[in-house]
């Protein structure tokens, strides 16, 4: 080992590049036992979903748009969970001790996790689209074949995937503990739906606030201006708000 000469910090020293933080976050997502099997599991379930919907809707029903819509279902459920684990895993396994002593600017760490989740959800989108295209080509006999999907639906589907995983990251940062994070993420929309069912006045604003309404229609139909506004308000409640809380907690909480 070298002699420890300097005892000063060189003025030209730079922080590790953000791209490196993102690369390491992506690597950390898949280099553990559970992290390795989860994406493989999601891919397998997606494949099975596409095969089943291709078989069930054999013939002209099995359009690319149809298969694509169904292929997103497993990820729409699992990407938020992965997002939660991406943040909470570190706090639960206490690897924050190592991460934050290497990157003390925790805002950069959380930003890198958000960026990594975007990369991951784009990859998931590509996988879903690829499976759908293959089986629409193999099974479908609709006029136009595999080409039967609009750019708008593809774009909305991509936005759906990206926001789904970011919502998970936001929830994770706000709660910081894996199990309660996942439970709360799954429970809150259900509680909302129950409330909306019981209280009539809540039902009418459901499209503006509930995750299960307009937002989950993103891969289904081309949205109108009003529906885009509804997606916006829904994301404010489920993404922006928890992310704001998470941004504060992630950066200021003492590490144990």
């Amino acid at each position, binding site marked *: *080992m*070298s*002699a*420890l*000469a*300097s*005892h*000063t*910090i060189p003025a030209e*020293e*730079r*922080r*590790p590049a953000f791209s*490196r*933080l993102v*690369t*390491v976050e992506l*690597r*950390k997502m898949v*280099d*553990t*036992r*559970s*992290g390795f099997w989860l994406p493989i599991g999601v891919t397998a379930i997606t494949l099975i979903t596409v095969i089943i919907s291709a078989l069930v809707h054999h013939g002209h029903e099995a359009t690319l748009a149809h298969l694509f819509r169904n292929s997103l279902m497993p990820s729409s459920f699992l990407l938020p969970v992965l997002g939660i684990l991406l943040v909470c*895993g570190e706090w639960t*396994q*206490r*690897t*924050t*001790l*190592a991460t*934050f*002593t*290497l*990157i*003390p*600017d925790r805002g950069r760490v959380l930003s890198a996790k958000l960026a990594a989740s975007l990369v991951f959800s784009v990859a998931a989108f590509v996988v879903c689209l690829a499976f759908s295209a293959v089986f629409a080509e193999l099974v479908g006999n609709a006029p136009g074949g595999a080409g039967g999907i609009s750019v708008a639906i593809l774009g909305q589907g991509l936005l759906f995937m990206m926001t789904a995983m970011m919502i998970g990251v936001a929830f994770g940062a706000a709660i910081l503990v894996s199990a309660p994070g996942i439970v709360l993420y799954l429970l809150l929309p259900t509680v909302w739906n129950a409330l909306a069912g019981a209280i009539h006045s809540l039902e009418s604003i459901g499209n503006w606030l509930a995750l299960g309404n307009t937002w989950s229609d993103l891969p289904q139909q081309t949205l109108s201006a009003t529906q885009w506004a509804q997606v916006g308000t829904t994301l404010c409640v489920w993404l922006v708000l928890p992310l704001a809380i998470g941004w504060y907690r992630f950066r*200021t909480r*003492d*590490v144990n």
Partner: protein
Amino acid sequence: MIEANSLTKRYGARAAVQDVSFSCAPGTVTGFLGPNGAGKSTTLKMLCGLAHPTSGNSTLLGRPFTEIPNPGRHVGVLIDASAAHAGRRGRETLATSAKLLGVSDARVDEMLELVGLDDAAATKRVGQYSLGMRQRLGIAHALLGDPELLILDEPANGLDPEGMRWMRGLLRDFAARGGTVLLSSHLLHEVEAIADRLVIISGGKIAAEGTRDELIGDQAMTRVRSADDHALRSALRSFAIEVSATDDGALLAEATPEQVGEVALSAGVALRELGSARAGGLERLFFELTQSADAAPDHASAMEDHSTLQETVR
């Protein structure tokens, strides 16, 4: 260079750490000593930006930790060896950090070799590691960026005697090359062999600080047993030598063994045990300062294993 200035951490009304100031110079090993719950970990976490002080501040190499652009290149930190992802392999744990720091994979292998984790161990998942192996992995992690400073919380935890000896050599060598080491422990005998200086913390406050000699003074201490302790005690007092009793019934005299031997000879008292008890003095000081129940058993055992010379006069 590590400097803590009036670090204070409060949880509600309770102060976990109160007005803690100390500094560690290059080329030295500082032992941060105190019973469990005294505030050692909280203080170390505040130094590394992991916990936010209620008041006070600290600098490492002249800067607050959080303002060092690439801190892993300057400060090696091991707060808790158990805090690693159980499902990640040992080498991978180091490799991801190496990537962040911007050091090569060759450095990872070099550190694994240095801490004695072979290929088989490095490819195991950390969940299968013993505490001693985790401790070694943690040390490798701290050394990865070739830092000038090491901050280690209870690094000897879980190490066997051979491991402790290895760690002692490693840290002494690190300091000899000009590095600064701050390590904590709740057991005096773990640190007194490594540390040049001791900072003793108790109840969140610094109870004493200094080199071993500064802490116990250069007062010689002798542990003695005799056939007639009562007569020996009065004889020693007649020579103006302070005498007290140890926990196990021996006498502790503030004089050298030679002086005590001569007094015993002149008083005609047969000695049964005679030995220098300077280490016991430090142990006693630590015990008194910290007043901790868990220090008591070590107190007695450390007294015994220090060069006690048994001899019988006449």
